């Protein structure tokens, strides 16, 4: 992509002066000899909603996996709230306040839906009643989950599992939420709802890094966006600028 968009400062004024919640510098990761992401640097500021767009194989999933400790970083660093969390084990990163709703849903298939949600709060020290209230909250977002709460998660339909995966990540009460294609497999009605939920969460102060193929919808609610190509950050800009950029439209928005 050739056009040069100016490197944008964080969208809202106040954020410019604060330290970023997430600061990634020179991050790279390999699968064996294959390099999947190369020299990625990005920041997410407190309260921001940042989205990442890119084609199949651009390295979006790998990036999120590297952030949440599933995948090892070969070089570079990840700072979360000023702390270096590079290559920490996943469970400690989660306990530190980052939750990740992974690609492909990855629900605990033989466990019940309720167990899945409870495990979502595994890293938290909160009281049982608090957690139960939050589970109810998830159920009110996705009533179908409540209906099937005692069934094995593996028997859910694809879209229902997606709801569960998002719900499970929300149960972790994260300060930074990583979402990998949350709208995948959801009905149009629910896609709209999911984006509303994401926006709500963001408004409640949760910082969000969102990977979406539904780039248009994602950019509509995002503050800023990064475009990934072949494992590199091709450029980044405010969401609005990206939405209106011709080459982005051509490559990702179907025009």
């Amino acid at each position, binding site marked *: 992509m050739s056009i040069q968009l100016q490197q944008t400062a964080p969208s809202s004024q106040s954020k410019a002066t604060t330290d970023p919640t997430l600061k990634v510098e020179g991050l790279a990761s390999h699968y064996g000899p294959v390099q999947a992401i190369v020299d990625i640097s990005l920041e997410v500021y407190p309260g921001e909603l940042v989205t990442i767009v890119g084609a199949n194989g651009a390295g979006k999933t790998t990036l999120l996996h590297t952030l*949440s*400790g*599933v995948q090892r970083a070969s070089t570079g660093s990840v700072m979360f709230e000023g702390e270096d969390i590079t290559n920490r*084990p*996943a*469970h*400690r990163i*989660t*306990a530190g306040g980052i*939750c*990740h709703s*992974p690609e492909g849903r*990855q*629900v*605990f*298939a*033989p*466990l019940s839906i309720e*167990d899945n949600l*409870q*495990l*979502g709060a*595994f*890293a*938290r020290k909160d009281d049982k009643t608090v957690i139960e209230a939050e589970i109810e909250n998830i159920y009110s977002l996705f009533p179908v989950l409540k209906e099937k709460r005692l069934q*094995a*998660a*593996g*028997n859910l339909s694809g879209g229902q599992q997606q709801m569960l995966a998002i719900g*499970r*990540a929300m*149960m*972790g009460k994260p300060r930074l939420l990583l979402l990998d294609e949350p709208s995948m497999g959801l009905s149009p009605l629910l896609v709209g709802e999911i984006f509303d939920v994401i926006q709500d969460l963001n408004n409640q102060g949760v910082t969000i890094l969102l990977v979406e193929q539904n780039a248009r919808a994602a950019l509509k609610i995002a503050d800023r966006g990064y475009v990934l190509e072949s494992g590199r950050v091709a450029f980044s800009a405010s969401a609005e600028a990206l939405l209106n950029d011709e080459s982005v439209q051509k490559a990702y928005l179907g025009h």
Partner: protein
Amino acid sequence: MFDQIIQFLATGLSIGSTYALVGLGFAIIYNASGVVNFAQGEFVMLGAMSVVGLLGAGVPYPLALLVAIAIVTLVGFSLNKFAIEPARGASVVATIIITIGASILLRGAALLIWGKDIFSMPAFTGDEPIQIGAATLVPQNLWIMGITVILVLGVRYFFDKTLIGKAILACSCNKTAAGLVGINVKLMLLTSYGLSAAIGAVAGLLIAPIAFTSFDAGTMLGLKGFAAAILGGMGSSMGAVAGGLVLGVLESLGAGLISSGYKDAIAFVIILAVLFFKPSGLFGFKSVDRV
């Protein structure tokens, strides 16, 4: 005839309880990692041998029992820490081979420490036979059955009702996702190896007063425990118990009523028949995979 059958049943339940305990050990590690731990029988052997060794060193009996359990638990931890955990990226089958290696190694170690002798161990509360209806049992039989019931209920509670128990289950079904919800997968595995080693040790010191012990006493018990766990449905604690008891009773009835030479064959034929009609065992969950 009727009296005889009562005796067969009583004996079968007592033998079956030990199989159940060994099977329970299998279930725990299976629940955490999907791996069948072929060194489970060696935990049983080590439990009994440790008691014998400790008694020989003059440690008082009840203390020796506790210390033996602690020792074997430690062995379980070590097996996980030094053999299972470093083998990152090993498939389930490769991990099973590691446990087979571990079973040989532990047997070899026991051979070096205690030699090839068969040892006896005193019963918990004497050898005086007890008459219960038409059946005769020794007190140790009752200890076996009693402790089995307690442990099984405990394990069942652990997996069904506690969050840690569920977290262990989550590890075996999806390590990545388990890590992402904040479960320390390594710690869970360590816990499960320790726990099943401890249960194995308990099985060992329960049965040794009846069946003696030696460095190679674990192999057969391990095999029977595996059969029990499978018959009941791998991973289910109630299943392990049901499987163990059924196996014990089948053996006893087979030996008593049909042919003692073929009693193991009879038991296995029936296990095969059960699996034919219930491919996931008596209490096993059907696997949930959707396409």
